[in-house]
């Protein structure tokens, strides 16, 4: 192989699975020692491109075109030689670290297996190399002995083990398929750092597949943008990101720029090419002050009954509200970041009052009668939500967000403290107040798992009506279902369909419809847009915005994603180790974070970076 020919070269690769075309005309190159960023939304064919390089395509696949790795045509290699190549010359890491490792084998076994498979080494040598590899990925033997099992490690640590498996034999090419999507931001920063250093130190080429433009912009030299199985644009990072030529890239770019965390001057470095700031100027938090001054109705969302995410249609850009652009005006932002009582709304009593809430999980049993000390998941948390307010709760996994959500919903025993909704206790003596149920609904993260697949949409959506004191008659129920479905941009006819007929974004709309049907005053959105693609996410956020304005809803927006929270909330709370470490006006917190943890979170959030081309 001469110096100029690329390490990997795909020419006119077509792929179909059971006659359904998946990839069309994929031609790309990965240069030795370089990083190629492959971006696109779910279903765009990114992962299938990766799997076709690995030649690990699902059954029923038919692939044509040529894939040359170091000059060898991969599609012509016999399976045995491909096995030698995989894990040795080409390594691959995956999106979901929680399930990517075999749960019944120790990490030493799993990393060592990769080494023994490809290298003729003695037992001791193989073990030494295993130890070195794990050390290389930041898992030193002193803290992470080889006999650890995956379930004893965190998500980030597991991803490091997966990386160790992939790089143990010093491959020339590492394919990373959404390696950090499932991880918290601070963990994500660590993994990206590791990938970068591996790439530089070992000179390996990296193919980074991601839907997150910010992540890619910080890592890649070259960019390939995929959409519906085709490459719509490719080139150098500066060229593609600096002046996106294709309409789709443009759209993707706008949609993600909308949900960019913009940093105030305190955090932000001087480079003016951070798009976030500029874009944030166009963003208004959901139902910010604009409620008093009626704003023009936002652009209607594209017909949602069309299958899939309908990404080709341009995303509605949120209505620019002249009244508020908090993130862009850091100087004018109020500096009180611990203003609990200084609610911006001068309403009489708060909608939701949480006072000194403590939730504990019992420790595991260590003897017949003794328990380990209880784990305090929520520790003395107090906050209020005003009528019509939209408030964010951010924090990383394990910080107690979910427990707090469960407590608010009355699904959890409160160790101490109280939760009142409109002055009424949410749960007294383990019985959830019916009145509270009628006022509060929830939308969960997983648009696939949170519906019973055997029920029709009409039944799913009308379910909360049972908590009403007088559930409506059949006809009235149908009318209400139809009207909420229409209010979330679906059709009344959709109530006769089953949930599998809808895309992720549409399902999340149905979940919102379900929460709206009893006309609550508070909706808890538990990572409600985290599983959605950027363009779909923008649409759903837009919908929430509209609904809030029309119906005066209050939102508790729980998310690990700072950008979304910044985009849609007026106030934000930052949670760590069960405590709320900082709360205040969203703009103020993001511009001028007070608590070190908030700063750490903000610093770890990748920013979309556009180098001058």
């Amino acid at each position, binding site marked *: 192989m001469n110096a100029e020919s690329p390490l990997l070269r795909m020419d006119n690769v077509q792929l179909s699975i059971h006659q359904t075309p998946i990839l069309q005309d994929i031609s790309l190159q990965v240069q030795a020692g370089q990083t190629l960023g492959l971006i696109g939304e779910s279903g765009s064919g990114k992962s299938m491109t990766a799997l076709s390089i*690995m030649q*690990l395509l699902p*059954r029923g696949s038919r692939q044509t075109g040529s894939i040359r790795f170091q000059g060898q045509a991969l599609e012509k290699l016999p*399976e*045995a030689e491909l*096995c*030698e*190549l*995989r*894990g*040795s010359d080409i*390594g*691959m890491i*995956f999106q*979901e670290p929680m*399930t*990517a*490792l*075999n*749960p*019944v*084998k*120790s990490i030493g076994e799993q990393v060592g*297996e*990769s080494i023994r*498979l*490809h290298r003729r080494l003695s037992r001791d040598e193989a073990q030494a190399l295993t130890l070195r590899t794990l050390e290389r990925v930041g898992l030193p033997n002193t803290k992470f002995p080889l006999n650890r*099992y995956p*379930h*004893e490690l965190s998500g980030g640590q597991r991803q490091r083990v*997966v990386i160790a*498996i*992939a790089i143990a034999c010093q491959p020339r090419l590492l394919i990373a398929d959404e390696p950090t999507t499932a991880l918290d931001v601070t963990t994500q920063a660590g993994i990206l750092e590791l990938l970068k250093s591996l790439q530089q130190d070992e000179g390996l080429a990296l193919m980074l597949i991601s839907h997150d433009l910010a992540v890619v912009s910080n890592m890649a030299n070259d960019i390939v943008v995929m959409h519906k199985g085709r490459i719509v644009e490719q080139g150098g990072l500066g060229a593609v990101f600096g002046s996106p030529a294709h309409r789709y890239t443009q759209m993707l770019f706008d949609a993600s720029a909308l949900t960019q965390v913009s940093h105030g001057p305190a955090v932000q470095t001087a480079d003016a090419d951070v798009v976030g700031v500029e874009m944030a100027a166009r963003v208004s938090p959901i139902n910010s002050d604009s409620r008093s001054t009626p704003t023009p109705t936002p652009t209607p969302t594209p017909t949602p009954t069309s299958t899939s995410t309908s990404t080709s249609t341009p995303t509605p850009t949120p209505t620019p509200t002249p009244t508020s652009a908090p993130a862009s005006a850091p100087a004018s932002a109020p500096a009180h970041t611990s203003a609990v009582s200084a609610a911006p709304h001068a309403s009489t009593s708060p909608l939701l009052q949480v006072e000194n809430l403590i939730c504990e999980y019992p420790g595991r049993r260590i003897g017949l009668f003794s328990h380990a000390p209880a784990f305090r998941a929520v520790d003395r948390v107090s906050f209020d939500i005003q009528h019509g307010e939209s408030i964010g709760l951010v924090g990383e996994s394990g910080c107690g967000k979910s427990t707090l959500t469960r407590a608010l919903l009355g699904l959890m025993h409160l160790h101490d403290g109280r939760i009142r909704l409109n002055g009424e206790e949410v749960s007294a003596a383990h019985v959830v107040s019916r009145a509270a149920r009628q006022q509060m609904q929830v939308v969960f993260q997983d648009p696939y798992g949170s519906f019973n697949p055997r029920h029709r949409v009409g039944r799913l959506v009308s379910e909360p009506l049972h908590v009403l004191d007088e559930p409506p008659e059949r006809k009235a129920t149908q009318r209400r279902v139809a009207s909420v479905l229409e209010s979330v941009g679906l059709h009344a006819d959709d109530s006769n369909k089953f949930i599998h007929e809808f895309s992720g974004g549409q399902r999340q709309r149905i979940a919102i419809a379900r929460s709206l049907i009893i006309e609550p005053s508070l909706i808890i959105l538990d990572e409600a847009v985290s599983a959605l693609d950027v363009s779909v996410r923008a649409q759903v956020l837009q919908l929430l915005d509209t609904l809030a304005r029309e119906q005066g809803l209050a939102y508790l927006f729980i998310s690990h994603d700072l950008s979304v929270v910044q985009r849609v909330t007026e106030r934000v709370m930052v949670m760590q180790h069960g405590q709320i470490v900082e709360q205040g006006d969203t703009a103020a917190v993001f511009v001028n974070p007070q608590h070190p943890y908030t700063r750490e979170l903000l610093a770890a959030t990748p920013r979309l970076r556009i180098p001058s081309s």
Partner: protein
Amino acid sequence: MLHYLFRRLGSLLATLLVASLVVFLVIEVVPGDPASYMLGMNAQADTVAALRSELGLDQSGPARYLQWISGMLQGDFGQSYTYRTPVADMVADRLWISLPLALYALFLSTVLAFPAGIWAASHRGGVADTTVMGFTQLGIAIPNFWFALLLVMFFAVNLGWFSAGGFAGWESGLFAGLKSLTLPAISLALPQAAILTRVMRSSLLDVLGEDFMRTARAKGLSERQALLRHALRNAMIPVLTIMGLQFSFLIAGAIIIENVFFLPGLGRLIFQSIAQRDLIVVESVVMLLVFAVVMVTFVIDLAYAWVDPRLRQQRR
């Protein structure tokens, strides 16, 4: 791990205690007095009373329960009402047939089911899969006594390789003993193997779809290596569960097959004892079976922990 073991043992003893109470109570409320049954319809009232006191039936319930339990703990299961021989000896004789038969059948079923299940799973949707699945349907559908009769007709009557029934006795040698258990074991194993094959296949298919199987392939394992090294052990939990249930069933559930082959096993013993109101034998055999089931569950629990490190930790 030791702690886990002790806790399992503790719950095992508790289960046995509860089971013994239930067995005793149930037998108490069942109508039919052993003494009058033994003496026949025309027995004098005082003769019956005398026999009752001789058998200890005139004592209070709790007293008899305590006697029964303490006797069992010392290996004394009491005297059979009908045969006037120690129950322990009767049961031991039968167990020497039933236990080997159950193990033999379990062995055959495993040997059949594992390869068949793995084969079917790794050729999902192919001819191999369809064929194996077709045979398992047959295996489940065919009544095992009818299959046993076919086996007798073919191998015993036509070919004369095996005797048509009866047990040669272990004293005539291991081979002779196993030989007389072979046809019964095959007829018992067949439906079990069919079920186990299906469980193995579906469990494996679940595991084959897991993310870590992709990781295994990406590190360069062939399909076969990945299946054997990574999928099999993960697929074992449901398979072990079914094996445990099947073994428990085989110990006493072989009654029809025992009848077909004239084997003096536990199943026949308990059937006869019930027919003759020989309550003490029924109680003892049922307790023995409870004990066996509890022990099998215990062993299966240990096997779970051996297979899956997560279970070791949770219950530590």
